[in-house]
């Protein structure tokens, strides 16, 4: 149940449709997730009850830096409102969901049957209630765009602000894009950034999805990314969780056709007073598909990390290959990491493996490096950078890789308190 004062304030929002009111009712009944909820055990959002939220944030114009590398378009989502800066490439459209559905009436029933696993996720309800008629990025049949589409996701506010953002990406058959999403904030106030992204990847389509999550310390950011993959489609997903006081990723893959490949790569590097939680779901619903998960974490200061990786292999999903690996380094005595791989396999002809490790940097390696004149802090940094490199190296786009690599190096150095020579 939501706190009384918050119920009063949220009920002042008017002009909600019946469906929105229904979703809002669900949210009010459940309230914000607490540590008593199994899926939120280490990542309670109880602190959100202590703010007098501004539920309908204004959209302020912002001046975000353009990237130095070549991009095919810039799309901005500012406090939930999405628009494109300049023209979009041929074969790509940005339009409201209502218009998209009007043009694709047959998709409505398919969409309603998509059936993601929501557990008791009240934030999805909240988003459903308040993010109305959100934007759709529509990539038409056979359209292949080599240069990345840059998505600038920004939350801001001059009061404590709750932002609901939602975006739907629809890739038609044989299309191919790289979606590079920079998640940023501009506020000294508390912000709840509640983001839902749903992606439909049609037959033979190829999506590279890169998320660069670098938000301020006053931000609570919850990212729900649900990806529905059809036959012979390929998705390479990357999540780089760099900064925010609280960062939760619910990344779901629903494999709805054969010959699908889903690659999930993630790196989280929380420092002092930061919590980063990854809940991944890979739901193999159809046969002959493959999923690969590679997650790495470096936990510094008093950081908390959570990794919960669920893999479902449904009875029809014979000949599934599903792999999961999650490796963590505690770079401080005060940091904690909670890992939980969860495999549920109902098919009998499958190959599945998982492994999670959490350890510290080797004292032997550190002494060896120090005995050569390398300071303890530099030795730690060198070892940590070598540890995270495996995930960064998987990025094919050279400029994005360099940009993220610098950002990660800087964060680790700053958290360990040094500059590398």
């Amino acid at each position: 149940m939501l706190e009384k004062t918050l119920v009063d304030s949220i009920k002042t929002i008017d002009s909600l449709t019946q469906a929105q009111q229904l979703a809002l009712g669900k949210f009010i009944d459940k309230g914000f997730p607490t540590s008593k909820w199994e899926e939120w055990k280490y990542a309670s959002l109880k602190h959100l009850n202590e703010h007098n939220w501004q539920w309908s944030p204004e959209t302020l114009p912002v001046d975000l830096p353009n990237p130095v590398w070549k991009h095919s378009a810039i799309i901005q989502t500012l406090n939930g409102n999405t628009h494109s800066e300049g023209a979009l490439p041929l074969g790509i459209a940005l339009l409201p969901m209502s218009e998209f559905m009007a043009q694709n009436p047959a998709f409505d029933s398919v969409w309603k049957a998509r059936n993601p696993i929501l557990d008791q996720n009240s934030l999805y309800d909240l988003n459903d209630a308040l993010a109305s008629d959100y934007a759709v990025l529509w990539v038409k049949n056979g359209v292949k765009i080599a240069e990345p589409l840059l998505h600038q996701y920004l939350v801001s506010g001059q009061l404590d602000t709750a932002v609901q953002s939602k975006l739907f990406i629809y890739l038609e058959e044989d299309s191919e894009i790289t979606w590079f999403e920079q998640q940023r904030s501009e506020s000294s106030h508390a912000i709840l950034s509640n983001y839902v992204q749903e992606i439909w990847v049609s037959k033979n389509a190829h999506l590279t999805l890169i998320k660069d999550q670098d938000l301020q310390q006053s931000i609570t950011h919850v990212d729900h990314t649900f990806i529905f993959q059809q036959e012979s489609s390929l998705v390479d997903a990357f999540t780089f969780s760099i900064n925010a006081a609280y960062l939760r990723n619910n990344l779901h893959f629903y494999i709805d056709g054969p010959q699908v490949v889903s690659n999930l790569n993630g790196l989280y590097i929380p420092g002092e007073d930061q919590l980063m939680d990854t809940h991944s779901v890979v739901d193999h619903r159809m046969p002959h598909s493959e999923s690969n998960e590679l997650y790495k974490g470096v936990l510094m200061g008093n950081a908390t990390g959570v990794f919960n990786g669920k893999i479902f292999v449904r009875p029809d999903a014979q000949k599934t290959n599903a792999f999961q690996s999650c490796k963590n380094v505690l770079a401080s005595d005060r940091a904690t990491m909670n890992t939980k791989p969860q495999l549920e396999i109902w098919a009998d002809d499958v190959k599945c493996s998982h492994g999670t490790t959490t350890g510290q940097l080797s004292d032997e390696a550190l002494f060896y490096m120090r005995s050569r004149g390398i300071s303890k802090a530099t030795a730690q940094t060198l070892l940590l950078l070598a540890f995270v490199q495996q995930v960064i190296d998987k990025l094919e786009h050279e400029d994005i890789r360099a940009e993220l690599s610098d950002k990660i190096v800087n964060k680790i150095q700053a958290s360990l308190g040094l500059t590398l020579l």
Partner: protein
Amino acid sequence: MLSVKNLHARIGEKEILKGINLEVHAGEVHAIMGPNGSGKSTLASVLAGRSDYEVSEGSVEFFGKDLLDLSPEARAAEGLFLAFQYPVEIPGVSTTNFMKSAINEIRAYRGQDAMDAVQFLKMFKEKMAYVNIDQTLLSRALNEGFSGGEKKRNEIFQMAVLEPKLAILDETDSGLDIDALRIVAEGVNKLKTPQNATILVTHYQRLLDYIIPDFVHVLYKGKIVKSGNKDLALELEERGYDWIISALD
């Protein structure tokens, strides 16, 4: 340059070094020999600053400075080098990058400017010739998947790059075939100058055929029980350690 006085060291409750006295001067080569478990490697580790050991008594001065008061990295910057018996694998860090970091941190400690890439490469090429090591090994992750011989050769290469005033070689001969041993020994001999010194920690006399020591010390139960010149090593080779031990026990 090195003056060890009445050095006692323990690991947990167990005392391993029980009063070591050792004076090393510039230009000298000292061999420390002794049966297994006598404390040879402990002495090397304590001098390099391994934190597993607690020094309970005694002092070590290095060029007049209290060595025991310095961090391992400061000891290296002051000119001490330990060639490890078991060089550690450092995944994801190449020897080249590792040495670049080491050189420039040491230079910073000494108040010198950082070396640029061109100077670095030139110096690297020179040193590679010392130990007959090739470029491909240096670009691989340090010690990862290296053979025993490659690891030891890499240790001597690092020593050539860092140009220590005092090098301690901990069982550098163990696990080496005769060719590798010769290459490593030649490297050490080439690096020898009247200004630096070497301590060889070894179980066998074999290495001393290639690197001739000025002094040989026998370590037993945490103490130096006998010292002599290179002839002592030959005698140990012939008669073993028993004749010394039985005279003591």
